[in-house]
C-alpha cells in the first residue's frame, strides 16, 4: 500500500450521477494495481467532514495514472465527483485482493467462457478486467459482459470498453427496459450458464450478488463476487468491513473484506 497526496488530471462526466476521475500516481503504485483492487480516496482540504476516505475500484490504469468511476450516493461521493482538474486528493492503495489472475488454478482453463457480471456502478470494478492494458490477459478466454442497470444512462463505460477490448460480447439489461432487455442481470447470467461452462466474476449491489450466488450454485458453476461492505480503514485494522464466510471445517468465520477481499469465491460468502 502507498499513501500519497496527488491530483486529478481529468474529470469526465459519464452520466448525470457518474463521473470518471483520472488521478496522477507513481509507477510503483500502478505496478501494484490489479483487476478488482481498490483505493481509499479522500479530498485533501484538511477538513473533517466527510471524515473517512471512500473506497473505489481502480477501474483503469496506465504507467503513471489510474481512474476511478464514482457514482454519487451521499456527501462523500458528491464532493469527490465535483472535483476538477488540478484538485488535490489523498489516496491509500492499491488495496485488497482482486479477481483471481487468469493463471490461477481455478481460472486457467482457456476454453471456458469468462462471464463478467456488472450491476449498476459494479461496472467500475468489472471494468478493471477489461480497460487496463495490463488486464488484457484475461481475454484469452471467450468473454461476455452482462451489464444491468436501473436506467439506460447508468450503462456507462460501454464505449471505452468496446474500444479497449475488440470482440467482447456485451449484453445489457435495464430494470425499466429503457435499453437492452427489461429485467435483471441475473436473467442474462442464467442464459449464459445454460449454454457453456464458465467462470463468472460479478460486482454489484448485495441483493444482486446474492442472486448471482444462487444462480451459480444452481448451475454448479464457479465464480467470484466483489463485495461492497462499509469500510473505515481499508487496510485491515478497524474490523469494520467483516463479512461472514465459510471457514475451516465449514464453520462460519469473519473475513476482512478490505484485505481478504473485496473479491471472494462465490461459494465462500455467507450472505
Amino acid at each position, binding site marked *: 500500500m502507498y499513501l500519497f497526496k496527488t491530483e486529478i488530471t481529468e474529470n469526465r462526466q459519464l452520466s448525470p450521477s457518474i463521473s470518471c476521475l483520472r488521478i496522477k500516481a507513481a509507477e510503483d503504485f500502478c505496478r501494484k494495481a490489479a483487476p478488482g483492487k481498490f483505493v481509499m480516496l479522500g479530498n485533501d482540504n484538511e477538513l473533517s467532514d466527510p471524515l473517512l476516505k471512500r473506497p473505489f475500484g481502480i477501474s483503469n490504469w496506465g504507467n503513471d495514472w489510474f481512474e476511478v468511476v464514482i457514482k454519487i450516493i451521499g456527501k462523500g461521493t458528491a464532493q469527490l465527483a465535483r472535483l476538477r482538474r488540478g484538485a488535490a486528493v489523498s489516496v491509500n492503495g492499491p488495496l485488497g485482493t482482486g479477481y483471481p489472475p487468469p493463471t490461477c488454478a481455478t481460472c486457467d482453463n482457456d476454453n471456458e467462457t469468462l462471464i463478467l457480471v456488472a450491476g449498476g456502478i459494479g461496472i467500475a470494478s468489472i471494468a478493471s478486467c477489461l480497460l487496463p492494458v495490463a488486464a488484457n490477459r484475461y481475454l484469452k478466454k471467450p468473454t461476455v459482459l452482462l451489464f444491468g442497470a436501473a436506467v439506460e444512462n447508468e450503462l456507462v463505460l460501454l464505449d471505452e470498453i468496446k474500444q479497449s477490448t475488440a470482440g467482447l460480447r456485451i449484453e445489457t439489461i435495464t430494470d425499466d427496459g429503457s435499453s437492452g432487455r427489461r429485467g435483471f442481470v441475473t436473467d442474462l447470467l442464467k442464459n449464459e450458464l445454460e449454454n457453456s461452462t464458465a467462470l463468472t466474476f460479478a460486482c454489484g449491489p448485495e441483493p444482486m450478488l446474492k442472486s448471482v450466488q444462487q444462480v451459480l450454485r444452481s448451475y454448479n458453476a464457479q465464480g467470484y463476487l466483489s463485495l461492497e461492505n462499509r469500510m473505515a480503514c481499508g487496510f485491515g485494522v*478497524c474490523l469494520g468491513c467483516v463479512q461472514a464466510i465459510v471457514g475451516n471445517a465449514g464453520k462460519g468465520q469473519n473475513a476482512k473484506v478490505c484485505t481478504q477481499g473485496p473479491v471472494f469465491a462465490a461459494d465462500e460468502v455467507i450472505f
Partner: protein
Amino acid sequence: MVDLKVEIAPGVILRNPVLTASGTFGYGREYADYLDIAELGAIITKGLSLKPKTGNPGVRIAESACGMLNAIGLENIGIDSFIADELPLLRALGTTVIVNIFGNNQADYAAIAAKLDQVEGISALEINISCPNVKAGGIQFGTDPEAAANLVAAVRQATTLPLITKLSPNVTDIVAIAERVAAAGSDALSLINTLMGMAVDLDKKQPLLGNVTGGLSGPAIKPVALRMVYQVAQAVKIPVIGIGGISTARDALEFLLAGAAAVEIGTANFINPGIAYEIVTGIRDYLEQRNYEKVTDFIGSLQ
C-alpha cells in the same frame, strides 16, 4: 533537539508521547510493512480477551458529522493467539507494546493480566473498563466508581505489569471514577473511550448499526475529551493519557497542554495511516520553534 521522552507509568518511558489507540492499529502487523512502528511512543493492541471473539453481526460502522460510530463488538483473536502469532513480530521490530485487555467479568480480567505477567516484551496493560456489553451485576464497570475500583484492584493483584485504566466518557462524574481507580492501584489513566451514540437508516426505518448503538469517535468528540482530560489531570497525581479526536499535531499539543502525559491517536489512523508519525514530527517542530528543551516542560502548562 527537543527531548520528547515521557514516562507514562513508573518505569515506562516512551521515546515520544504519541501512541496508537486500541482498535485502530490492529496488532501492528498491518503497518509494519511500510512504516517503522518502533518510531512511535508505543502501540496499543486491539482489545484482547481470554478467548477469541467474533464481535457483532451486521453493519459495524457508520459515519457522522466529523465522526464515526463503531459497533465492532470487540472482535479479537484472543490472548493466546496474540502471544503466539503477533507478539514475536512486534518484539522483533523493537516496538513498545501495551496490551489492551477486557473480560466478561472480574475473573476474566485477572486471568488475562496474570497470563501476560509471564510474557516478555509487554510494557504495560491498558484495562478497558468501558466495554458496553460487559457488565458487573447489571452495571458497566466503567460507569460505577465502586465497580471500577474493585476491578482495578483485582487486576492489580494479578500482575506486576504497569496498569493504565481506560475510562469511559459516558458518565456523570469522570473525576470521581478517576480518583477511585487511582486509589485502587492504577499506575496511569487513559481517556476517553468512545461516546455512546446511534445512527438510523432513514429510508429503511432501521437502526443503521447491527448492534443499534455504537461508539462515537473522531474530531467530533475532541472538545468533550479535552474537557475530561483537563479535569482528571487536575484531580489525580498519576499520569493521564489523552484520547479523543486527535488528528493533528496541534490537537495533540492541546491535550499535552491541558495536562496529558501522552496522547493516543485513534480514528485518524484510518484516514491517514501515517498520521502518528506526522504528529510526532509536528510536536517536535512546534516545541523546537519555541525553544523547549523537553516536552515535559510543556505538559500541563496551560494557564
